[in-house]
């Protein structure tokens, strides 16, 4: 226990959790590599929501996001023997997702703008952020949030795919600069630069709504 505490003190709770999570994933991956196909289900259950969210926010297309997410899991399953555990499993998986989505976007240029799913009331009430969105009544709050969501989707689609990826991974998925650099196969400096530029663009697009 004291050992765990000393590690926790040294690295910080977040780092310890991330390290444990990574080890857990690696253990599951090794099981799959050894032939335990069912073990892959655990990875699907764990990452399907985040994966769908990334792909949906990149494509803004509900149906295609679902298909692409499935395709990503299948690709990951097929090439799981090539994963050596040098990076975290999720960065490897996200990289497959980003590359698969890039390919899809290059192939189909059309874009649609609609939200994946309306936020349910429970999510709204649990969000601290939303409390500050509007001082209006509940229905008014919902309407403002929905409208802002639509505008944000539009704004995201005005960005280039590379800038959009960085914004989504950092602001929505909460990845660090280093993790994004691994996923996008770029440097951390590039990630910071893209993030800064992308946020400037979004600010400009949503100026009327943010002020």
């Amino acid at each position, binding site marked *: 226990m004291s050992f765990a505490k000393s590690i926790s003190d040294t690295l910080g709770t977040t780092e310890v959790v991330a390290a444990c999570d990574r080890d857990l994933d690696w253990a599951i991956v090794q099981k799959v590599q050894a032939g335990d196909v069912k073990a892959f289900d655990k990875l699907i259950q764990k990452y*399907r929501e985040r994966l769908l969210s990334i792909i949906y926010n990149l494509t803004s297309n509900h149906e295609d996001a679902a298909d692409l997410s499935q395709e990503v899991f299948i690709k990951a399953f097929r090439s799981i023997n090539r994963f050596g555990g040098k990076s975290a499993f999720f960065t490897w998986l996200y990289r497959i997702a980003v590359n698969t989505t890039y390919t899809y976007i290059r192939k189909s240029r059309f874009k649609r703008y609609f939200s994946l799913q309306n936020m349910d009331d429970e999510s709204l009430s649990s969000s601290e952020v939303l409390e500050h969105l509007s001082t209006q009544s509940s229905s008014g709050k919902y309407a403002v949030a929905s409208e802002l969501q639509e505008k944000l989707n539009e704004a995201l689609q005005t960005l280039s795919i590379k800038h959009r990826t960085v914004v989504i991974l950092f602001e*929505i998925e909460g990845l660090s600069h280093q993790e994004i650099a691994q996923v996008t196969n770029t440097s951390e400096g590039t990630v910071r630069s893209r993030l800064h530029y992308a946020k400037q663009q979004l600010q400009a697009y*949503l100026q009327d709504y943010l*002020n």
Partner: protein
Amino acid sequence: MPDTQPDNKVTLEALLRLKRHEKPAPEFWESFDRELHQKMLHTLVRKDPLVIRWIRSLYKRLYIVVPSAAAAVITLVIALQGDVVQKTLHLANASTLEVASKRSGFTKSVQGMYGANKTFVTNALGYSHTSSEGSQASALRVVSSDKVNYVVNTLGQSSNIASIAQGGVLF
């Protein structure tokens, strides 16, 4: 609050974080999982096209074949070089050196022409200045018969031991 500014304005970061709450309904995941498992099963069962399988097996074999072949070639070259030196030294001691071409029935005719105790160097393309007519040798070997030695190589025209040795391909 980091999400909002003091005057209660909505920030871009707060708006982006709202997207974390976009979630599909539970029934969506049921169909998602079902479809995914079907596709994965199909992937497991499905065999790749023959060409893909052949390329994949070839690719795997290259890891074994290429180093083995390289090792074999290097060994052969080293062995040949040692043999070249030995043969060159041996032939340099010969009293007469003439070049002829290797062809069917050549041994007897040359023997008749030049007699015994002669050494003949023959190249694969068969052209030599002592032969009126060239021919192609089909093998790399020393033809020894009744004290007559013929050196046969597979390179181009050679008229003496030095040029054959320079060619580097002797048996």
